């Protein structure tokens, strides 16, 4: 479904992705973790070409991201993206946030799009907020609407870029629950997150990155019980007991 082969990317002189090889299969849930500045956000952003790559090959849902023939807007419509800062459209109500892309890009009739939006809002537990505006919602609620908005396009892949990092601790659970529910439907998911509970319980594979390189790739149980790389050991130790 997603295949990185020898992918490189630079920000000016900074080598942010240094030879990435990664293959995500259909229906797989992959968690990407690593210290800040490791390139994990850049990695996930290359998948829908928010960040273009400079070397190597990247195939997403059968489309070659380096080919000039690939219609990038078409690819993005098939790939849902959830941001750390939610990025809802502040001038639109919750329901309009969700129906905008389906009605304008997919040409779904408005009524049908609204019915689908309501189903999605039920699923994320926010049907009562259909006419609210983003500023009237808590962070957790905004993120759940953002997930519903991405799902409204019926994507084949969902990408999550630190979806809970901007949330108060008591709101993290509600967002993770929605993501777990989504994973159980067989959605292909790539999540950059530090929520190790989610990684352990929901993901099929954990990818650990540092300095633009994938240092370790393992089943979650194995990764947490017996990390191979020193940098991964140190990272897990700090994550589990930050005071030491």
């Amino acid at each position, binding site marked *: 479904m997603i295949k990185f082969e020898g992918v490189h990317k630079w920000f000016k002189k900074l080598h942010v992705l240094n030879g990435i090889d990664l293959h995500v299969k259909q229906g797989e849930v992959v968690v990407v973790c690593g210290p800040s500045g490791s390139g994990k956000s850049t990695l996930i952003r290359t998948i*829908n070409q928010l960040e273009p790559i400079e070397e190597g090959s990247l195939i997403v849902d059968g489309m070659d991201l380096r080919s000039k023939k690939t219609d990038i807007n078409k690819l993005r419509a098939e790939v849902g993206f959830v941001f750390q800062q939610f990025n809802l459209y502040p*001038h639109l109500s919750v329901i309009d946030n969700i129906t905008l892309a389906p009605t304008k890009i997919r040409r779904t009739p408005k009524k049908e799009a609204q019915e689908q939006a309501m189903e999605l809002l039920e699923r994320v537990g926010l049907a009562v907020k259909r006419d609210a505006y983003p500023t009237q919602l808590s962070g957790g609620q905004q993120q759940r609407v953002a997930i519903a908005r991405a799902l409204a396009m019926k994507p084949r892949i969902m990408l999550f870029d630190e979806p809970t990092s901007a949330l108060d601790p008591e709101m993290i659970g509600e967002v993770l629950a929605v993501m777990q529910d989504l994973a159980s439907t067989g959605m292909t998911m790539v999540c950059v997150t530090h929520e190790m509970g989610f990684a352990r319980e929901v993901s099929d594979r954990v990818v650990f990155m540092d300095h633009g390189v994938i240092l370790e790739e393992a089943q979650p149980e194995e990764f947490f019980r017996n990390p191979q790389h020193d940098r991964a050991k140190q990272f897990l130790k700090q994550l589990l007991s930050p005071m030491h």
Partner: protein
Amino acid sequence: MLKYTFDWSIVTSGKYFEWLVSGLKVTLELSAVGIVCAFLLGLLIAVLKMSHYRPVRWIATAYLEFFRNTPLLVQIFFWYFGSYKVLPTAVNEWLNSTNFEFAAAAIALTIYTSAFIAEDIRSGILSIPKEQMEAARSAGFSYLRSMQYIILPQAVRITIPPLVNQFLNLAKNSSLAMSIGVMELTYQARQVESYTFKGFEAFTAATVVYLGLSVVITALMDLYNKKVLNPHRA
């Protein structure tokens, strides 16, 4: 001692009153056409100025600098006395069959004001967080569609206060159209003064009407902002 005797009746009823009313109508038409066209053109120029393509940006920049930095009166004269000299005969015949004074004034006001509006809207666009564009592009919207549905609606809200200023300027600047014979409010006030020598009354009347027009524009924009753009904040 004051020798002048006031006669307000000339501007509140009768023939001269009707002149002023017909002038107001033309002023309203000119302002309405100008505001709508200048806004749309300003939007377009603002988007072009932010284009990824350098030549497009250059054209937009040249447009902005040229029309912002030359006097409106010269631009009005250019369209009225200059432009038709280089147009084909057929076009000129058509222009003469229409109200060419009005058209020249409307074009000049539109283009002149659009340059200012474009800069206001551009600063509005720049104030929208770049993540909004990312969210729109991620959903599969093209750059222009992202502008249309996500960025511009937000930018225009922020731009309302400076836009009101530009609309007011346009309405007041429409008085310069008298210089090429457009029979708008100032032209008619001048006519009333010529016929009656009651300059104080005639121009007081014009002043009051312009003031009223400005108040109405401000109130309408305020209403639009509150009821249409920000209903949830009301």
